[in-house]
């Protein structure tokens, strides 16, 4: 797949969206490419990629399948990765990345929601919204809201962010073992010896 051609076409249709490309991981052979996108423009890029408009109408690799959506925290930024694939041609794959920086530990950040383009994104976004504190906005400036919860009612904080501090007491039960900080120190009792 001519990624270069794709990217140049993307730059035409959504100017300023594409920031950078880099290979993903260390897979041998033909590496999978990941493309950093400006978060504002993610929805436009998503629409273009999923419809296959840029491929000359053949539609052979409309990237219409969002296989995975994962969020991670690198330094201060929350980096979201969209793993895209084509249902017609399973060799085609692309990874989109976008990053946002939360201003404080417990502040929400905003990302555009792509579930209008790829409906399968819904459960992933719900999870990221709750565990990372991301607000997913829809095209007409609405906010996606899910009533389902992974965390109990009244839970404060976003657990999957680094620097999250566990409460010392939950529902009256003491957190008996103080957990190490996020960089995985080897102390903290038997937590570091790998027993399940």
């Amino acid at each position: 797949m001519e990624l270069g051609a794709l990217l140049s076409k993307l730059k035409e249709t959504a100017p300023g969206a594409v920031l950078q490309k880099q290979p993903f991981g260390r897979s041998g052979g033909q590496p999978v490419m990941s493309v950093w996108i400006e978060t504002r423009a993610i929805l436009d890029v998503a629409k273009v990629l999923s419809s296959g408009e840029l491929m000359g109408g053949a539609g052979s690799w409309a990237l219409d399948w969002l296989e995975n959506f994962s969020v991670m925290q690198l330094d201060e930024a929350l980096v979201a990765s969209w793993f895209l694939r084509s249902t017609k041609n399973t060799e085609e794959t692309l990874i989109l990345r976008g990053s946002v920086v939360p201003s404080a530990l417990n502040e929400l950040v905003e990302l555009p929601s792509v579930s209008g383009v790829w409906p399968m994104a819904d459960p992933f976004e719900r999870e990221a919204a709750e565990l990372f504190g991301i607000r997913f906005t829809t095209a007409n400036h609405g906010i996606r809201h899910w009533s389902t919860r992974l965390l109990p009612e009244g839970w404060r904080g976003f657990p999957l962010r680094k620097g999250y501090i566990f409460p010392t007491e939950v529902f009256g039960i003491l957190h008996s073992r103080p957990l190490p900080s996020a960089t995985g120190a080897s102390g903290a009792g038997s937590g570091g010896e790998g027993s399940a």
Partner: protein
Amino acid sequence: MIHEHLQEPEKERLRTDLASWEIGPYHGALPAPMQLQLTLDGEVIVSARVETGFLHRGLEKTFELHLWQSAPAYADHLDPEGSVFGELALCMAVEEIARIDVPERAKRIRVILSELTRVTAHMGYVARIARSVGSDTMVHYVLRDREKVLDLFELLSGARFSVNFLRFGGVQADVTEGFIERVLEVCDLIRFRLKEYNDLLTFNHAFLKRTVGVGIIPHGRVHHYGITGPNARASGHSLDVRKVAPYSGYGRVDFEIPMVTPEYGNEGDIHARFLIRLREIAQSVEILRQEAEAIPKGDFSVGPIDKDFVPPAGEAYSRVESSRGLLGCHVVSDGGRSPRRIQFRPPTFSLLAAIPELVRGVRIEDLPVLLMSLDLGIAEADR
């Protein structure tokens, strides 16, 4: 005095508008703790809302708090029924980051474990469907045969379900003496028993009436929700990660992707999903036989992994064909002693998104069968 016993006429009225009924988190129709808010017109479901999150255990955060060495043990607990798949996805991703070459023997052992797990998971599936449909005899037969496979797991690792056997770079130990021979015996047994199941349940008239034409996932909706695995294959999409992106030596194994020809009903109904899994059991038995007969001598691991194991900085995304569908694992390492991020892509997410559409128009009595037929893994969906 009399007022206490007289009911107001309003309350006694037989209402004929839509009723709402909340099922869950624990209910006979549900395979795992989840909640369904149903709106009913008589016995027919008009709309449904799914609520999950009851099994959230903070697994992904746990990875980040412990060393790399303990990650496979936690990945083992991703899905209690398909524990090997979680371990395998994680190990493959980490081996890609750390550029570890897994020895041949270890790869074959991993394939054998994966296929055995697939067999046990599908047998559990058959038992759940039989129980939901009310055929108790079938439940006992299937579980009795599943015990034979679980005995194999116990022989290998000491545990029946969560084997905790895979490590980065191979497996924990070499297979026990006599394990391979017993695998071949179990293969023969299962081949024989599959015919029994067909006689007893698969083509039973009452069962066909309950399952044929019910709960159809149309061919076109599979990609809308991103459904993978046996459910997608029952609706006509032949995507199997073992063929598309072979891993751990699957490229060398000779097998076909089971597909369902709709001889008894429509593509994508409950019966098709049931048949697909029976065929997958047969296919797994075939793979097991090949791998067990051809297993080479060699190392079972590149070396012991101790608490100082640290992969270099990098990330990887691995895909595994689990019994429920495509299981993905995104691993990010920053060179530290604990993982930066381990994220699993559970195949059940797409099914949860599809449930509201699937149960529309279905009768309450079909709801248990339908939900069991989707093979929902709430433990892996909630993590």
